[in-house]
Every structure is written in structure tokens, then in C-alpha cells.
């Protein structure tokens, strides 16, 4: 993998013939077995060819007379008093450019570090406030109204959303029409399945009944396949996905789970009333 990345970044030098013999041999060997790098090399070669065809030298477009006079023009500028002070904004930009333009990642880490430091500072300096008297009185009067008792209601909502989205995604795949060339665009489905996978991973650590846990596990397998599928894929891959959905009878199970969670929410809400 590391070798692939290193070679991929050397493809430009290779295309321009600017690599030594050893590197040339390594790249050639890799190209023989890596379709992706071969494709990228072709792309690079075509850009080099296009830009090379229209390459011009801007300095060459100015006549010899211009270049003879150029050093004198600079000397004239140097002879002028240093009245034109550099714009403050330009100076600031020059100072910050290496950090914020050329090294955005470092700047990101720095900003994140600073933000964490500020948050930690605020948390350390804050004294724990005593709860207001009214709140204390309410807690004494209603000891059952703890956060733990409200948590399951929230979980149900989240679970319902998860099942509804999953159902919509699977129905979409079931009804998906293929283009004339047999290619299917999976970009949106990929994105949605990645979001749902995160949710599924969250639910894994929640106290679930065995049926819901099994359903989430089965669903996760399909979501992983969807999340890793190519953005544009052919009909056979779609058929494999559909086969998986039908084999596990996933749509039916999701509808059942949704109905159960709807009922439990209804019961809970009635109970609370």
C-alpha cells in the first residue's frame, strides 16, 4: 500500500523522464500490475502533452529592449524614497501564508489545540454552581424524574429514524432503474449508508432486545457493502445487493420493527399521560 502511494506520487517525474534507473524500474514493475496507476499515468501524460503543446514563455514575449531596461527600472525604484510603505494587510498575509495557505493541516491542528485549551481552561476555572432551590424542591417531590428514566424515550425516536431511513434506502435500491449502458450511480446511496453505519455502530452499544440487535447486524452487512461500492457500478453488483436484501427479508423485518417501536412509543406516551 505504502509502495503504491509512493509510486503514484512519482508518476509525474516518471512521465517526464526525471527519475533515476532504480526508480524507473520500480515504477515500470508496479505499472505492469496496477491498473489504477496505469490510468493515472495516462491522465498525467495527456495533461503534460496538452500543456506542452500550448506552452509559452511570458518573459520571451517581452522584447530584448525591455529586459535591457528592466534592471534600470528597478534601480529607479530603489532610488525613490521609501514612501510607499507596504500595505499592512499584505504584510499580514505574507506572514500567515506559509501557515494558513501552504500548511492548512498544521493550521487546523493548531486551531483545534487552541480551542481545546480554551475549553479546558473554562472548565477548570468554572466553580460547580449549587442547583437553584426550585430545582431541588422538584427533585425531592418527583424522585422518578431522573435523566435515566427519559433516556429510553429518546432511544426509541432515534431507532425509529434509523429504521425509517434504512427502509427508504433499501426500497430505493429495490426499485432502482439501470441506465442504458447498465451503469448505476450510487453516490447518494453510498453517502446515506455511511451515515446509517455510524448510527448502527452507536446502537450496538445500547441495551437492545435480541431481535432488534440481530436486525441491526443483518442490516449492517448490507450497509457496509453499499458504503464500499463504487460510485458508478454495473447491474451485477446491484443484483447482488438486491439478493442480500431479499434473502434476509430485510424490508419485512424493518417494517415489523418499526411497528413494534411505534406501539411501544404509543404505550409509553399513554402511560405517561
Amino acid at each position, binding site marked *: 500500500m505504502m509502495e503504491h502511494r509512493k509510486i*503514484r*506520487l*512519482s*508518476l*509525474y*517525474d516518471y512521465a517526464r523522464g526525471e527519475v533515476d534507473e532504480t526508480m524507473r524500474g520500480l515504477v515500470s514493475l508496479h505499472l505492469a500490475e496496477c491498473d489504477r496507476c496505469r490510468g*493515472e499515468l495516462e*491522465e*498525467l501524460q*495527456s*495533461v*503534460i502533452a*496538452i*500543456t506542452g*503543446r*500550448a*506552452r*509559452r*514563455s*511570458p*518573459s520571451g*514575449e*517581452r522584447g530584448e529592449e525591455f*529586459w535591457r531596461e*528592466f*534592471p534600470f*527600472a*528597478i*534601480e529607479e*525604484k*530603489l532610488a525613490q524614497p*521609501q514612501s510607499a510603505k507596504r500595505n499592512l494587510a*499584505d504584510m499580514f*498575509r*505574507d506572514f500567515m*501564508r*506559509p501557515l494558513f*495557505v*501552504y*500548511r*492548512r493541516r498544521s493550521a487546523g491542528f493548531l486551531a483545534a489545540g487552541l480551542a481545546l485549551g480554551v475549553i479546558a481552561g473554562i472548565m477548570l476555572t468554572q466553580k460547580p454552581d449549587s442547583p437553584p432551590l426550585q430545582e431541588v424542591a422538584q427533585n425531592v417531590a418527583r424522585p422518578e424524574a431522573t435523566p435515566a428514566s427519559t433516556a429510553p424515550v429518546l432511544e426509541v425516536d432515534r431507532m425509529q429514524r434509523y429504521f425509517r431511513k434504512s427502509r427508504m434506502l433499501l426500497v430505493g435500491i429495490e426499485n432502482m432503474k439501470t441506465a442504458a449502458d447498465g451503469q448505476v450511480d450510487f453516490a447518494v446511496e453510498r453517502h446515506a449508508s455511511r451515515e446509517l453505519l455510524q448510527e448502527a455502530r452507536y446502537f450496538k452499544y445500547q441495551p437492545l432486545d435480541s431481535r432488534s440487535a440481530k436486525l441491526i447486524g443483518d442490516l449492517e452487512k448490507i450497509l457496509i457493502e453499499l458504503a464500499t461500492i463504487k460510485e458508478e457500478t454495473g447491474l451485477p453488483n446491484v443484483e447482488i445487493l438486491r439478493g442480500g436484501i431479499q434473502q434476509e427479508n430485510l424490508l419485512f423485518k424493518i417494517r415489523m420493527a418499526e411497528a413494534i417501536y411505534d406501539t411501544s412509543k404509543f404505550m409509553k406516551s399513554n402511560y405517561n399521560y
Partner: protein
Amino acid sequence: MPAVDERNLVLLAKEGDRAAFRSLVELHMRKAYDIAFGVVNNHADAEDVVQESFVRVYRAIGSFRGDSQFGTWLYRIVMNVALNRASAVRSRARFEVPNVHESVLHQTQARTMPVEDDLQYHIERAVHELPTLQRAVVILRHINGLSTKQVSGILKCSEGTVKTHLHRGLKKMKMLLSYLEENRS
């Protein structure tokens, strides 16, 4: 010119020798111009940028320690001045109302352009669509043919970063050029 001679010229320029500084200008002015032109994309601005860069270099040459080559230091200044100029032009353009007659004239000129110029125009447009770092790397490494090591010195980043951004920049350019080509046809 050998590196030793250039180092001597720098030492003399540091002591205030105008002739030595002029030799340094003559040595680097064309390359500096090509780099500046890559960013600002017109002769008048490129000329201003290079002149301003040399003035800055002259005034700061006393603080040049010689850790990097003179050329690397100079081109870094040229790049900074050119990027500032380009961003100033962009922000000015945001507040300006386009001149109708001028735009019509440009369209007429564009239609009568020969194919080579048309391609050149597309390439310049594609370069200017790139994000700042990718654009800087493509201009320095690909268009001006500086080595990866020199570019990493100019932009103060690692050689790996230069290679990565060159790769990404050229891929993006390829995409943009194909799109422009399709639109043209």
C-alpha cells in the same frame, strides 16, 4: 552561473554593491517574471510584481542568512507578492460593474482567436481554478520546470506535499480541460 559566483554576488550586494545586485537581477529576472505571470496572468501586473519583489529583496538582503539558495528566497517573495496582487485584483473585480463594450470586444476577439491561443487560454483558466497551493505547485513545478526540492523550499513544505499537490492539481486540470474542451466542441 555557478552557485559560488552567485553566493559572492549576494555577499557583495549585502555590502551595498549595486552592480552585484544588478547582476543578481539580470540572472533571475526572466524566471521571476514567468512565475509572476503564471499567477497574475497579465504582463503589466507581472512587471510590477517582479519589480516590487526585487525592491523588497534589496531592502531585506541584509537579513538573508543563506540557509537556502538566493533563487529560492527570491521566488518565494515573488510568489507572495504575486498572490497578494492576484487576490487584490479578485476582490476589486467583485465590486466592479463589467464594462459592456469591453466584454463584447473580448467575445469578438475570442471568436477570432487561433486554436493555439484558445488552448492557452483554457490552460490558464484551468490553472486559475485550482486552490492556492495546488496552483502555486503547478505553476512552479509543471509550468516553470523548477525541481521538487526547489518548490518545497519556496513554499516551505515537504517534497511529499509538493508531489501530492502536483498530482491532485494536474488531475483537476485534466478534468477542467476536458470539460472546457467538451463545451467548446
